[in-house]
């Protein structure tokens, strides 16, 4: 898995990407891993949406080896 951080999530984590050592994860497992490694993300968690391979994830979706996962804070385009 390859995790991308954008905007405030990149600022808080202090990095733009991260490769967790997880073969398979559900959303909760992913967040536990992320917050262990980047506790600064904790206050942002309620506002962050997760995308998997360029799509917002749906409830119950699993993350697998090879997935590109993005942490998407509230957007502000336009």
């Amino acid at each position: 898995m390859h995790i991308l951080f954008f905007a405030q999530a990149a600022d808080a984590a202090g990095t733009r990407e991260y490769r967790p050592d997880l073969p398979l994860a559900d959303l909760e497992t992913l967040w536990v891993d992320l917050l262990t490694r980047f506790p600064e993300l904790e206050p942002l968690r309620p506002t962050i949406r997760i995308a998997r391979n360029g799509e917002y994830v749906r409830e119950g979706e699993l993350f697998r080896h090879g997935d590109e996962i993005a942490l998407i804070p509230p957007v502000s385009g336009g």
Partner: protein
Amino acid sequence: MPIEVTLTPAAIPRPCPLPVLETCGAVAEFYGTVRGEEAGEPIGALVYEAYEPMAQRQMERLAASLLEEYPCTLVRVIHRFGIVPVGEAAIYIGILAPHRREAFGFLSAFMDRLKTEVPIWKIKTLPR
């Protein structure tokens, strides 16, 4: 090809000429430009970040989905990222439609949904 979406670091041309189509009675255009102040302080530019492939696809998909409700003939969207100086456009939308209602409806709905769904961010301001 009724939907043209471009995500680019280049300046958005203004004017940005649309074709003339005899079936269309409405031409609507919108430029969202960078204002000279942010939170009361003068600024020189905004910096936009985009999750490029996802933002591109989300904009295309959003446009396609809105065309079902607002049947326009041509929709052109250009979103800029990187440094956008004050007075320049961060986004351009150009629409050709048979009638004004679908053009206005598309324009308004596209901007509303862009601002909640498309992974593009204003990440900082630059001073003058």
